[in-house]
């Protein structure tokens, strides 16, 4: 039997109602996680950003502009879709998708870049910088920069540039400069180091648009707030369509912005189970993966305390995932906190399982998920199979798979 939940019209539960409503604290801590671990030079710009964001979020004109952009430029609200054939194949609960893949530029990333770019413009910054892994956040940043007439520089690991050549070209067409990062592992974490170095040197005119719910405060909470539109819409749409809330939420977790965006508005709904899916790569036991919540330990990187993949000497480990967007050794601090307090459950899915889900979803639903989102689909199939047909699993279809053609072909031993 499914849990019966009466329709709930609250969209913003009162602060302080639950432990997670009190986070982050004034210093950006989610329990023991988060905070601001940066070089002193960045403290002033972070203070400036936190002040500007606190002002903007209560400014009606700013919020009206944001909502108008989300509607007319991004294409919100994104649909809620019943994946009937996938549900039937899984055999169990009904699987529904929140269609972030239908957002402008093809992924949820744009929800956040629209918000941060408007804030940058409001603060009088003329230049924006970003880090990118799969290139989706880079494209989303280049897109809003083009629209607002801001100079845009995107840092991208040279290994990721190879894997995501089409996105590199998209960013260049949008007028952004893509700077290859050759240090360290040449992936997302190194791109973030390089963006932080750029910001330190250009704090006066530059706004750093971080693409995920990590980094120093106020980024984790600010990015969550901009992405929470996903869960707010999904919660409302579920109530309108099904007159109830889902039994379980499933989203992939790299840094974790699409996941927190879906989860956050449901945190108070105790009967809604929450599952975050990390990149299991070749399998957790092989060490070749990108699943800090599944196998890592608490540490400090990129401005916040969180679960990290690290060795016994506190050096950050290289990661592996078929999905460039999940290829990151850390995770947003709020996820670390939700794991520790038991509000969310974190699991992992291997490259092979994600690829299989990618192909199945493509063939039987006609929806080609991003390889990141395919991790969520893979776990949702497994989860649904353990549930009953009157239960509902809501998956965040965080992005579309067009960008992943060469990775998928390569995995199949084909060349395009």
């Amino acid at each position, binding site marked *: 039997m499914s849990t019966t939940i009466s329709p709930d019209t609250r969209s913003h539960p009162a602060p302080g109602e639950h432990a997670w409503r009190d986070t982050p604290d004034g*210093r950006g801590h989610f329990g023991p996680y988060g*905070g*601001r*671990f*940066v*070089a*002193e*030079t*960045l*403290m*002033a*710009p972070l203070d400036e950003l936190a002040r500007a964001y606190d002002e903007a979020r209560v400014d009606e004109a700013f919020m009206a502009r944001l909502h108008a952009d989300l509607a007319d430029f991004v294409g919100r609200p994104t649909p809620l879709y019943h994946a009937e054939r996938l549900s039937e194949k899984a055999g169990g609960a009904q699987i529904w998708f929140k269609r972030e893949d239908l957002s402008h530029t093809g992924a949820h990333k744009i929800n956040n870049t629209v918000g941060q770019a408007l804030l940058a413009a409001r603060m009088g910054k003329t230049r924006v910088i970003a880090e990118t892994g799969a290139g989706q956040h880079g494209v989303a940043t280049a897109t809003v920069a083009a629209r607002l007439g801001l100079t845009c520089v995107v840092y991208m690991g040279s290994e990721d540039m190879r894997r995501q050549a089409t996105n590199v070209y998209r960013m260049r067409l949008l007028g952004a400069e893509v700077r290859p990062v050759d*240090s*360290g592992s040449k992936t997302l*974490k*190194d791109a973030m*180091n390089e963006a*932080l*170095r750029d910001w*330190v*040197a*250009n*704090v*006066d005119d530059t706004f750093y648009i971080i693409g995920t719910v990590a980094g120093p405060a106020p980024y984790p909470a600010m990015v969550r707030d901009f992405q929470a539109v996903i869960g707010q819409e999904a919660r409302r749409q579920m109530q309108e369509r099904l007159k109830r809330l889902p039994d379980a939420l499933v989203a992939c977790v790299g840094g974790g912005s699409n996941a927190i965006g879906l989860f956050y508005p449901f945190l108070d709904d105790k009967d809604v189970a929450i599952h975050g899916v990390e990149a299991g790569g070749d399998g957790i036991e092989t060490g070749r993966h990108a699943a800090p919540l599944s196998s890592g*330990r*608490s*540490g*400090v*990187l*990129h*401005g916040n305390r969180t679960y*990290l993949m*690290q060795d*016994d*000497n*506190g*050096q*950050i480990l290289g990661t592996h995932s078929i999905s460039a967007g999940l290829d990151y050794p850390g995770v947003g601090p709020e996820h670390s906190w939700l794991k520790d307090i038991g509000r969310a459950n974190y699991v992992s899915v291997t490259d092979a399982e994600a690829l299989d889900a990618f192909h199945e979803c493509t063939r039987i639903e006609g929806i080609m998920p991003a390889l990141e989102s395919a991790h969520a689909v893979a776990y949702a199939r497994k989860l649904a199979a353990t549930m009953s047909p009157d239960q509902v699993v809501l998956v965040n279809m965080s992005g579309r798979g067009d960008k992943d053609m060469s990775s998928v072909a390569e995995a199949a031993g084909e060349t395009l």
Partner: protein
Amino acid sequence: MNRLDTRFDALRQRGRTALIPYLTAGDPGPDATVGFMHGLVEAGADVIELGVPFTDPMADGPVIQAACERALANGTSLKGVLSMVAQFRERDAETPVVLMGYYNPIDRMGLSTFCEAARNSGVDGVLIVDVTAEEAPEVLPELSAAALSPVCLIAPTTSEARIAKICAHAGGYIYYVSFKGVTGASSLDADRLADQIAPIRTVSALPIGVGFGVRTPTDAAAVSRVADGVVVGSVLVSRIADNLDDPAAATAELRATLGAMRDAIDAADDEQRKIHRQEEGERA
């Protein structure tokens, strides 16, 4: 009183500016560092900053990033860095050593384990680049219990209110970052420096060392006219990078580079003291 305080007091009495070279420990290999440290002392170092290599040195420029990568490729760990300091102490009981690095390796070792081991190895101060004044309460009691001075950064972007907050808990010396950027990136604007560090003087009696961008003896002399210490990093690390296969040549170049800075600083110090004596004479 630890070696840092003793050393800065002695320098102040003699009217001398501290010369503070930085090296990344374990670069290019774990056996090189102790010899380099002794060479730096012989060339006139007053304090040594020893960088603990980290995979993600986000406040460092390409020169020190590459040094970190070389050191890590050779298996340098925080534990290994502490043994280097202990080995250095076998022949040098006087020169203060400050560890400079990022928080994660310390956090992973465990703060109290680290502090105890650092004290036992002969470390005098610790500068954790990514632990700001807001997060410092997490580390200060343990550092203090082990008599390790918390050396703190102040940047051109630091407000006067923050300067006061940082100086309230800082120890050893203040490390003033001379420009907005990463290590080794820009060049020094010595003219602005006096104005920039003036607000620190009004709230703290701690000596002020200035780093980031000191490349030449002229830079070092210019900094010595306004600051109490001159920190030199990337230019020395470059000398090592230029001589990866020849440790003897690297040592010789390190000594020559630092020695030239020592001479320039001493000449500037002598000139300052002469001016000072003249002023005193006129007053008398």
